[in-house]
């Protein structure tokens, strides 16, 4: 178990066979779990493997490289890509902690047919992932096996085939498979839609959740805003000025574009899909002022939800589909409110900061992330609906805005100008480590308004 593994690792090091520096691998920077990890007799004051103290401890995993036999350079490159993507996926997932690679050399390869379980366990790897990559042009064949070094069993074995340009997806597929093995939702195959500036225009892009394979999906040279993935991932709603004024548009995965419903010169913006994908909540001034409406996508039926003279915009559905969070400035400054999905029972959620906007309801239903104005910038907060706890996740003098949840509710994607330009970032939703666990996904230019696919 963990204590044993750690003890073995420490024991191996204590014997002085190899002297290693303190590991600095990403994902291991957090303080040790305060409780739950029995102290090893050989433990020095600071443990070598540090486990993030979230709800469940991370499982230490080793992922040695997948060198193909023969040393073909092209194949080696593919194998390295798959390896690195898997490593990053599992690290990002939050369920695994990477055993520092410098420990790998302590394990002596037992040969092709045997797995050196004890040796891997001895360097702290409770899980071991081995991979094999081959090429049947143009198909990449990837075989991954996950081992539990404690029970000395292979717990997962998969072979994937895919076109070479989908190499990264082979790794994402296995990563999600590994995570789902522990009854958790893998997110490595999820994607992020966002807005990027092209000259004076803003166009919609999509990319993998890790920032790879970015692809532009609009090219109308006007302003395109607020992309929102449908729950089934097959449609993106967004706002476009392609016809002059801001209209709600829908693009399907075949690239076909249509107006969400017949629109005039009024403002239509801020689309948000209901969890069942049947309704789009949005903000419209069609009755003279920005109010929240729902559109039944199948037949175009509109239902008005809010009625007041203030701005009501940026709806976000509860995962139950029974409530909607939104922004309203009905008290003078924007604040987050909740209402029933039919518009009744409106109540104010935020009181702590004078300017709160861009609510995003967690897919677990328990929390709402939003942006709040601070002296000198904007920061991202998360309000726990059960406990009322308010947590500040970013803390700098820049603009950090537009938080949107990952499908598993463990991460947030957001836009920030901390680099000078606006870029899209992800971070852990528990916010304990702004910095180390923040990943920048876009580089150069200005990118905004991310939406994470379900």
């Amino acid at each position, binding site marked *: 178990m963990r204590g044993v593994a750690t003890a073995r690792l420490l024991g191996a090091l204590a014997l002085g066979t190899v002297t290693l520096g303190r590991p600095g691998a990403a994902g291991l920077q957090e303080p040790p779990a305060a409780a739950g990890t029995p102290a090893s007799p050989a433990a020095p004051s600071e443990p070598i493997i540090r486990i993030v103290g979230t709800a469940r401890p991370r499982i230490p995993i080793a992922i040695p490289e997948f060198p193909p036999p023969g040393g073909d350079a092209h194949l080696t490159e593919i194998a390295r890509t798959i390896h690195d993507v898997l490593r990053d996926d599992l690290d990002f997932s939050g369920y695994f902690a990477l055993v520092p690679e410098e420990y790998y050399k302590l394990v002596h390869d037992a040969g092709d047919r045997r*797995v050196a*379980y004890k040796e891997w366990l001895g360097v702290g790897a409770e899980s071991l992932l081995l991979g094999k990559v081959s090429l049947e042009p143009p198909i990449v064949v990837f075989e991954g096996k996950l081992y539990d070094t404690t029970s000395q069993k292979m717990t997962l074995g998969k072979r994937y085939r895919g076109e070479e340009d989908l190499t990264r997806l082979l790794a994402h597929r296995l990563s999600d498979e590994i995570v789902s093995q522990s009854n958790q939702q893998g997110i490595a195959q999820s994607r992020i839609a966002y*807005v990027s500036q092209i000259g004076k225009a803003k166009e919609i892009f999509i990319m993998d959740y890790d920032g790879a394979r970015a692809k532009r999906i609009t*090219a109308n040279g006007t302003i395109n805003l607020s992309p929102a993935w449908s729950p089934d991932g097959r449609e993106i709603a967004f706002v476009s000025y392609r016809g002059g004024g801001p209209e709600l548009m829908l693009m399907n995965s075949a690239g076909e574009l249509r107006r969400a419903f017949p629109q005039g010169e009024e403002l239509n913006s801020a689309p948000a899909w209901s969890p069942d994908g049947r309704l789009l909540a949005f903000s419209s001034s069609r009755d003279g002022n920005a109010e929240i409406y729902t559109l039944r996508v199948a037949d175009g039926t509109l239902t008005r939800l809010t009625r007041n003279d203030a701005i009501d915009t940026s709806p976000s559905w509860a995962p139950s589909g029974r409530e909607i969070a939104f922004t309203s400035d009905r008290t003078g400054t924007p604040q987050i409110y909740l209402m029933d999905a039919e518009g009744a029972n409106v109540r104010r959620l935020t009181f702590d900061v004078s300017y709160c906007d861009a609510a995003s309801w967690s897919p677990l239903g328990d929390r709402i992330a939003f942006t709040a104005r601070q002296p000198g910038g904007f920061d991202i907060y998360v309000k726990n609906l059960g406990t009322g706890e308010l947590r500040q996740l970013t803390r700098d003098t820049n603009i950090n805005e537009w938080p949107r949840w990952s499908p598993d509710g463990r991460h947030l994607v957001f836009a920030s100008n901390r680099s000078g330009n606006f870029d899209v970032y992800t971070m852990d939703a528990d916010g304990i480590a702004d910095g180390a666990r923040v990943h920048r996904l876009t580089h150069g230019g200005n990118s905004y308004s991310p939406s994470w696919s379900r």
Partner: protein
Amino acid sequence: MVHGPRRSLLVAALVLAACGWIVACKSTPTVEPPVSAPPSFESTPKAAEKVEETTGFKEAAPQVESVSESAASQAEKLNAQGVLKRIHFDFDKYDLRTDALRALDDNLAQIKQHAQFKIRIEGHCDERGTVEYNLALGEKRARAARDYFTSKGIPAKRLGIISYGKERPLDPGHNEEAWSQNRRDEFLFLAE
């Protein structure tokens, strides 16, 4: 040919060797399933999972969208001359300041004088705040000016509004001077 005692010796040696191997292997007794072993491992190519892009979203080819407004030269000239004045707003506000009311009255006279044109009122915001809130705020600003004009007798159907939110800043700076310039309504003559 191997026979007699020599043969049994060889067998014994083989048995010993095998035992030795087994002993050596005892640290890793679990034999991993062969690559072909079901159910967790798809062995044959046809059983292997095929990864394909199920939600492709076609790469968009740049398309030319024509926006020609050829008959608009006179309106364009007036617009280029800045005949209609901008008005400005306070942060997160859409009520008309007194300096804005003066400018609106000047604009009103021009609008009446050039009765052949429609007017487009564009509402804009500074960069602070989200895209969506600013779109709504920009529209409030444009509506405030339209409501003022209609209260002075200009037919609402002559007055179109559009919000650009924070998408079209006048001044690209990131300071109060730029922001105060960017919180504005712009007014444009439009040919029919």
